[in-house]
């Protein structure tokens, strides 16, 4: 009876016009106003700044008064000798961060969900969350010391085991992506798993009971109940993550860069800072940033469409 009433009410709500809904639930909509204002002021109005990508920015005349230069910066960027290298590096870093690291947080959440000793579970969760709160500068400085040739812990262990203790990990391009992957994973795995743990807690417990009665093993329950149960969350996060494929994140890469690994550690994000802030070429930097944004948007739209078609999970 109660369930029927809820369904009826929902049907009534969906049929009501926006005006009527606004009138009926005005306090809730009113509470939404500051949030909307925030997004307009902080996210949407600054978007107007992308017009800089088509202008020769003048300090004095400002964004709107500066003369137009059309697609000059885009042309310079796409024909520059650095373009392919930057694109390749950015895509590699994006792939590591968005695709390669993606399943680890899910696996951790699934594992934590199976832990029955609550004390152990809490301690494990806290330990895995902690790195998220450390600043990148501190993490990279720690990494520099741990990996220092001869004097770093890692090299000392290698030396004790009879290997070459002089490996300069941060100066060798071949270690860069591995280090980035390990560092980023260590830092974010715990934090990223929270959302999956929350999704797992929403899975209907009666399904597990039924599966137990049917004689399902833990692994099978994980595979056939938990994972399908959080499929929607996984899908949404994946679609949003794909949008960041061309954004490698500035801070981490910038701090890990050395002349030795520069060939692989120079990405679009570091390039934007280098030419924008350090060389004062704001228009050029905006143009590169715009390319990143547009490609990200296209990727999200395509991914969302594909996901909707094949898995029925989508952002909109």
């Amino acid at each position, binding site marked *: 009876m109660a369930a029927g009433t809820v369904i009826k009410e929902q049907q009534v709500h969906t049929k009501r016009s926006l005006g009527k809904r606004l009138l009926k639930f005005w306090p809730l909509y009113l*509470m939404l106003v500051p949030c909307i204002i925030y997004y307009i002021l902080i996210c949407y109005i600054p978007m107007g700044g992308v017009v800089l990508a088509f202008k020769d920015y003048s300090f004095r005349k400002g964004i709107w008064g500066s003369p137009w230069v059309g697609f000059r910066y885009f042309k310079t960027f796409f024909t*520059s000798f650095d373009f392919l290298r930057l694109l390749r590096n950015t895509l590699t870093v994006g792939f590591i961060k968005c695709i390669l690291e993606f399943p680890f947080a899910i696996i951790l959440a699934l594992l934590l969900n199976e832990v029955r000793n609550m004390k152990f579970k809490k301690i494990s969760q806290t330990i895995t969350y902690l790195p998220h709160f450390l600043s990148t500068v501190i993490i990279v400085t720690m990494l520099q010391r741990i990996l220092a040739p*001869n004097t770093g812990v890692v090299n000392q262990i290698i030396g004790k085991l009879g290997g070459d203790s002089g490996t*300069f990990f941060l*100066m060798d391009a071949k270690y860069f992506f591995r280090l980035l992957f390990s560092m980023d994973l260590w830092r974010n795995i715990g934090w990223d798993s929270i959302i999956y743990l929350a999704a797992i807690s929403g899975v209907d417990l009666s399904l597990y009971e039924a599966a137990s009665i049917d004689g399902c093993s833990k692994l099978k329950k994980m595979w056939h109940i938990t994972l399908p149960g959080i499929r929607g969350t996984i899908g949404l996060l994946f679609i949003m993550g794909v949008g960041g494929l061309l954004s490698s994140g500035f801070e981490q890469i910038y701090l890990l860069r*050395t*002349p030795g690994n520069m060939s692989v550690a120079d990405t679009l994000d570091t390039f934007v800072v*280098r030419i924008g802030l350090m*060389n*004062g070429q704001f228009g050029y930097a905006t143009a590169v940033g715009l390319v990143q944004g547009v490609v990200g948007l296209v990727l999200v739209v395509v991914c969302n469409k594909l996901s909707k078609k094949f898995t029925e999970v989508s952002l909109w």
Partner: protein
Amino acid sequence: MKKTFLKRFLTLGLIAALVVSSAAACSKSDKNTSDNNGSSGTTDAPADKPDTWIADRTITIQAYVDDIGNSLPKDLNNTEVMKEITKRTGIKLNIQYTPGDSDSSVMAAQLASGTVPDVIVSYLNDSTRPEFPILLKAAREGMFADVSGYLKDTKVYSRYLEDDYLPNDTKKNITFRDEFDGAAYILQFSIDSEDRSLQYNPEDAYVGGLYIQKSIVDALGIDPYKVNTQEQFYDLLVKIKNGGFKDDNGNAVYPLGPKYWGGSSDTLEYITPGYNWGVSDGYNITDDGTIKHEIDTDYVYEKINYVRKLLAEGLMNPEFFTMDSTRAEEVSKSHNSAIMADVHNYQEIIYGSDDWTPLGPLNDFTGNNSKVVHGKSGYGAFAISADAKNPEEILKFFDYLSTPEGQMLSEYGVEGVSYNMVDGKPVLTDEALAKLNEGDKDYLVNKIGAGFGGAGFAFFDYVLTNLDRLNNFGESRPGAGSSTTFARSVEIAKDYPRTLKLVPGLDATAYLSADSLADVKAQMSLLNYKDMLVQAIYANSDEEVKKIVESFREQLKQAGNDTFIEYIGKLYKDDKESIDFYTK
């Protein structure tokens, strides 16, 4: 019903609180702004004003100089120096500093926002500094006031109008550029009253570069002054390695350690001068008159291979180029480096003990180890906002600071408080001297607030010009004549004198700011030759070295190197002193 009413009441309350707090935040910032603006205006002078009176106003200065930002007094206008300045000129100061990744990037961001306070003060040794293109753009776009009309009425800055007073670069590229058509927007500080660039004076000479542990020198029985060639330097490193020397922690020393301030590719200037082709930022001219970049000569491989050999044989710290400043200081202080790649005699690690002594310097590619100087030069610069009220008052204020009276006040503080006049020269009081020797920042910066040769509030050491400290004050910096602190610095400069060689002209890359080279500059600014050298030095094989070098050659070509060489070739043909090329 009651519940609904309560909900609505609470909601309204929340929203009202949000709106009120937002409005309060906005109105607060408005108030700050108006305070700043309001205080910048001029008010009437008192009837009994001194001759040095300028105006009763506050000048707001944005400094893009970390030394100034790091030494700002807690209460600027209540230091002895500022109280005296206000008494004599009516001027109060509001100095702002914004820390950031680098001072030049902070400046770029702030100028891009389109607002400048009354004055900006920036680093600007010459027109090759990264700050210059940003300052030039701002000047071109009319953000700075033209002070050319006021210069002739000033006591000190009027000298900038004299024919041979300003360094060539300052005159042609910074202050009186042809394109400005007589206008002057950017004025440099720290111009010497006379050209003494070829005079070596141990009393104020900075002896920089390689320093070696004295105990190692004694143990090996070498004369560090006679290590001049790349081969001799290599042999010395080998001797140190074989000598089994230990650091303070009992670990084996690295024969060659990073520079005291942290790893950097700049240090190649000191460890491989024999393979550095000239001093013009990579460019030079061959005997037959062809202009090239070093990448197109054999020097590039000689340099890379030399350092690769040092690394491969364990003769230098592997983190030589990348070590952060804290650790570099650590390895220097713990004597882990037998040789520091770069430090100078006014750094405490050097003057604080007898542990270190200068090494070399090594010969350059011509077989000479004289230090190349380019003639007179400036150090920092200032520009007055085009929107500042009465810019002539601001110029007068900076002019006052550079008069003999202003310089004395700026550097030594107030007579009778921090110095006394003896035989017509300022001498620090015992208290001030003791505080200077102790490095008591609270006294030097917060109480007195004078420059004290850079040991106090750096602003007042930084913004002076028409300098002649030895003649005016009888010493190169406050306390140098009577302080024991820098006795060792002067002793080093006396014991290891440097010879100087004049090579007039600017680095070739200074001319990249020409309008016709805008696209070339945009591409070239993405290339870093020194980073490429380090990358090649750490390459895993000789083949990889070749690949890195060849790739850079190609990138430089694609960036428009030929166009650039053609441009500077014409310049050099017309004026041999325009670019600092020199041959064997």
